[in-house]
């Protein structure tokens, strides 16, 4: 009996030692990983775009870990992602980010999708002095709050989103521009940016009108734009609205010399068929847009990796995927430059790297506030043979066709 008891005590002690050793080893392994926290909307209006971005970030993490991790002051550290659901709900965002920081003990944060959620996230992460990488929030307002540890790695500010289109109009000597826009942060910011830049270039903005969310009938606005004699019609909104407008333009036989729709080169948009023909648009991700990268994978490599990692996903990679991947590639360089993951060092490294990196979404350049001022989209046109890059000239693959053929001649 006594012998059995002694054996039992001995075995228990041995098991305890083994368990403790394993726990310590695991804890040390965990300590070596760099944990990135972000929120991804599993439901609500931002779900599709957020999940597309998450896939982009996962591609980057997979790529880094395949190479053994990020070099942090001479030590390779792997990346681990913790993604929680924000339900596209701004009021949930602070709670989720605080959970990531306090409970999950993440080292670095990635922003949620969109300006609406990112504004709330930035206020929270800043309160805890955590480094936040923004990949999809364009609102200039975010960068005017005096945040110290916020950087937009890839998403150009809303005030500059419309610049490619406006610059293109200036280059072909457009005289009159009609703009309608959805009254929400992203389209409103883009529209205002287009207006400002166009006016700087001597283009007269003959119509500048907003519409509310849920508008389905655009016929009156289209007719009004036609009546102004505008050469360019620029409806700024999300993909669904723009597809609707394209259809209604054909139904009304509303022919503008140029129609510019931001999402006109997205795969789902092109699926609408003839109504998408000859539209001008802009994108960061297309087989004809190939930047000479000095960090991360190039476009073709990223797309190939996407197919390998997500063979069953119904959606092809889009510019949200590209933005998030690009943000990861930029972050890797920031960490390497900083040699640490302390927020102040990361922010300084981010500023030091400004103007020195080119990732698959374009050249990286930020202001000290963290606002991204490069990563400009290129202007595309959906021509007979397919999508072509028409501006800027340095990357153009075809000449722009304008005035576009009227509907009866197509």
């Amino acid at each position, binding site marked *: 009996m006594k012998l059995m008891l002694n054996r039992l005590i001995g075995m228990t002690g041995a098991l305890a030692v083994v368990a403790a050793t394993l726990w310590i080893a695991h804890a040390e392994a965990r300590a070596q990983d760099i944990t990135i926290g972000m929120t991804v909307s599993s*439901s609500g209006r931002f779900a599709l775009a957020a999940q597309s971005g998450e896939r982009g970030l996962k591609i980057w993490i997979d790529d880094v870990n395949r190479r053994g991790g990020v070099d942090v002051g001479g030590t390779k550290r792997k990346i681990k992602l913790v993604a929680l659901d924000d339900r596209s709900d*701004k009021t949930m965002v602070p709670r989720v980010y605080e959970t990531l920081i306090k409970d999950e003990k993440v080292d670095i944060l990635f922003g949620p999708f969109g300006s609406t959620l990112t*504004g709330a996230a930035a*206020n929270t992460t800043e309160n805890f002095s955590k480094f936040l990488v923004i990949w999809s929030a364009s609102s200039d*307002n975010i960068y005017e709050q*005096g945040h110290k540890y916020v950087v937009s790695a890839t998403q150009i500010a809303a005030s500059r989103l419309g610049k490619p289109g406006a610059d293109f109009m200036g280059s072909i000597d457009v005289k009159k521009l009609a703009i309608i826009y959805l009254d929400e*942060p992203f389209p*409103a910011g883009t529209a205002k940016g287009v207006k400002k830049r166009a006016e700087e270039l001597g283009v007269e903005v003959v119509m500048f009108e907003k519409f509310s969310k849920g508008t389905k009938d655009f016929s009156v606005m289209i007719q009004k734009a036609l009546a102004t004699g505008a050469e360019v019609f620029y409806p700024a909104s999300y993909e669904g609205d723009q597809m609707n407008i394209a259809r209604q333009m054909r139904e009304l036989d509303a022919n503008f010399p140029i129609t510019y729709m931001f999402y006109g080169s997205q795969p789902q948009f092109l699926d609408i068929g003839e109504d998408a023909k000859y539209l001008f648009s802009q994108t960061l991700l297309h087989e004809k847009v190939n930047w000479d990268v000095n960090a991360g994978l190039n476009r073709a490599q990223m797309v190939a990796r996407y197919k390998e990692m997500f063979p069953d996903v119904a959606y092809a990679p889009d510019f949200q995927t590209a933005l998030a991947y690009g943000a990861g590639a930029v972050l890797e360089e920031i960490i390497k430059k900083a040699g640490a993951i302390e927020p102040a060092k990361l922010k300084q490294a981010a500023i030091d790297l400004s103007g020195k990196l080119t990732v698959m979404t374009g050249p990286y350049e930020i202001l000290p506030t963290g606002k991204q001022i490069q990563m400009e989209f290129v202007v595309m046109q959906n021509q007979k043979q397919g999508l072509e890059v028409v501006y800027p000239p340095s990357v153009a693959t075809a000449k722009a066709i304008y005035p576009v053929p009227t509907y009866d001649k197509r």
Partner: protein
Amino acid sequence: MSSLTSMDEAKASRIRHTLWFGLIGVVVLWFGSIPILDGNQSLYFSLMLWVTMATSFNIIAGFTGYMPFGFVAFYGMGTYTAAILVSIVKVSPYIAIPASGLAGVLIALLFAPTLRLGGIYFAIVSLSLAVILQRIMGLAPEDITGGSGGLNLGQHTVREQGFYAMLIVLVAALATVTWLTRSRLGKALRAIRDDAQAADAMGINVQRSRLYAWLLSALFASLCGGIQAWFTGALDPVTAFDVLITAKTVIYAMAGGLGTVTGPVIGTVILVWVDELIWRQFPVLNSFLLGLIIALLILFMPRGIIGTLMQKYPRCRRLIM
């Protein structure tokens, strides 16, 4: 016999109040220590906010039987008032927050004539109130409301102070509802809820009583909005007047039991904790599961948790506020 019954009643009332105030005391101590113990302030802030919203909704819905589907109008008004005063007018939050409550009361006064309507008509008109206010905020000059992009309080966001402000408002809301149960106004409201004509015949000023409940309800909802703006620092017309805010308020209040003091508190606490649990465990399915749980709760406990408890075990009434 009757003196024994009234003695029993007095004893039951003392027990009820002791338990209730004891609970409030525990809540104050527990929540008050969260920032000190470095707990998740956002989670507990959210809990306090929803308990306050459900409690204030209970004042108008539980005590008078009026269901304002546009309840978010007061919350949104409070949010914008506080944000505009702090970020544009540059007023201290200690003035902006009470002003946000006042703004909600003024809006409630403006729409007080709708109290003449009853049932579904009142519910729908109040919904239109929320839509109107949302559109006004969207159409107002951007220099004032920030337009569709909304406002960002940035460095004016002071989480800890916002947290304690929410705690103070929560306690005030609970104290108000407790007072209502014992007051003439509370008794008048219950009489109006049960039979407005009979209440009127008994000499109760129906319109004035309803108005007081309406104003109290609006006050706490708009204070919630103002403090939320201070705590999170970012708002826009869509999220400030989101119909889901009304929906959640109604669900939390009903899940616990309208017309009781404890009901909305218990309903909110249980559902928020359940939500937190399933959100962590089921990243993709959490919304579906939460909806399922709420549907089952309302199906099997239409009177709410406290209401059902009191119905099945009438002796509980002696102990529950």
